[in-house]
């Protein structure tokens, strides 16, 4: 039996339904600290829902989700906020707050959740924006940023509180190959000190960044293992997804 308490993230027989459609069925897997898991699967198989369940934006109908040994399915209010602060989330469309500048997008969590001075906040934002290559754009509104810049800005916002766990939804969707590769580089820089769960359609990027793959098919866990192991999996869908054909 898996000891969930040693794991950074663990899903234990999780099911999720929207109306009459069951999106996830009895999904179980765990992610070790500082491990990078890539979640693969065809469209509509519940990959993004899995991420939203992990950060408790959605609640499962059945099963338990453990973050650092704590079952978050029963948590609410301040207790849930405390667990969420361990996580950063890069949304598929970055989800930058369009009424705030890039600087204020990053400053919002720092001002609200820490007691740092404005000078410290300034330094942190400069450092994080420099890391993602957006140091000259902090006064811009999200509307003025390109798709790749928005992704990098979203990643910067996810990193600004130095989370232990990073949840990333489609880091390369809608981006050209070079920009997608730049995003992968940024993720590789986080790999050493962060647990990451990445939902992706880009197998080549996933192979660069991921330690193990989770493959979902029709809401079920179809396979779990290293890319090399899954290349010869008995399930054809798994083989095709992992080989990228």
């Amino acid at each position, binding site marked *: 039996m898996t000891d969930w308490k040693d794991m950074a993230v663990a899903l234990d027989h999780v099911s999720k339904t929207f109306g009459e459609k069951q999106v996830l069925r009895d999904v179980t897997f765990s992610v070790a600290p500082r491990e990078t898991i890539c979640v693969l699967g065809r469209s509509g198989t519940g990959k993004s829902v899995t991420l939203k369940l992990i*950060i408790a*934006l959605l609640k499962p109908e059945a099963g338990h989700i453990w973050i650092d040994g704590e079952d978050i399915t029963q948590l609410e209010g301040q207790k849930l906020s405390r667990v*969420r602060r361990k996580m950063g989330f890069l949304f598929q469309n970055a*989800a*930058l*707050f*369009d009424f705030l500048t890039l600087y204020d997008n990053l400053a919002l*969590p720092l001002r609200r*959740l820490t007691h740092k001075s404005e000078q410290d906040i300034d330094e942190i934002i400069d450092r994080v924006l420099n890391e993602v290559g957006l140091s000259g754009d902090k006064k811009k509104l999200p509307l003025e940023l390109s798709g790749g810049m928005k992704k990098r800005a979203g990643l910067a916002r996810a990193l600004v509180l130095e989370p232990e766990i990073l949840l990333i939804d489609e880091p390369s969707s809608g981006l050209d190959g070079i920009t997608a590769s730049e995003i992968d580089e940024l993720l590789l820089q986080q790999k050493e000190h962060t647990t990451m769960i990445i939902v992706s359609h880009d197998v080549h990027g996933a192979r660069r960044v991921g330690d193990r793959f989770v493959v979902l098919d029709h809401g079920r866990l179809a396979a779990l293992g290293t890319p090399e192991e899954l290349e010869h999996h008995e399930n054809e869908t798994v083989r095709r997804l992992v080989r990228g054909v």
Partner: protein
Amino acid sequence: MSERKVTGLTKALEAIGNAALFSLRVIKDAFRAPFELSYLWLELTDQGWRSLPLIVSCGLALGFVMTLHTRTELIKFGAGAWIPEIQCLSFFVEIGPLVAALLVAGRVGAGMGASLAEMRATEQIDAIEALSIDSFKLLVVPRVVACLLALPLLTTFMDMCGVFSGFLSEHFLSHLSLQLYVARAFRGVEWSNFIPPTVKTAVFGFIIGTVSCFFGYTTNEGAEGVRRAATNSVVMSSLLVIVADVVLVKIIFIMFPGTAL
């Protein structure tokens, strides 16, 4: 068929219950720190300052038209001297508060409903929650409080514009001086004709803010949800403002019997 009716009724009752809980949460969270003063200021600027041109132009136009309509009949009965007072009372007591509220419901209500629904559709609200920030406190409470504070001020502007354009109209038609117009206009007006109707617009502001934020914040239907939230915000908040007006006028009559004509 009857099962469908029951389902529809259940859904309607559920929506009313959710809206009631939503408004109670607004009241509770408005008195809980942090108070989001910077966002409140942004909203006051947007809802108050940027609504001012609409309120001023409508107040001027309405005041002008009202004088033109009433003066013919009043002069027929030899009551031309009453024109300023009737203009002033009708604006202070009913036209100013109600028209300002309906204009704000149209401009601000639609904007609030659509912007929150768009934030929901583009996962910005999820992003705020994912950052461990209370999205309700950050997005809904400042909007409702700003609407509640802005509407009495906008109503005062509308009243003043209505009375002023009434004067302009009278001045050009009968060469009435400003001093005489003001003396006649405020001859029978008491504070109780101005303060309770203006304060009641704070309730209108609460209704417009809460209803619009409810439709925007709770939608989850993408672009269609944005359209629906904007439409429902205007229709429902306008309807509720008119219903609340009937109730509040009765309450004002009970509390200030002298204002009942």
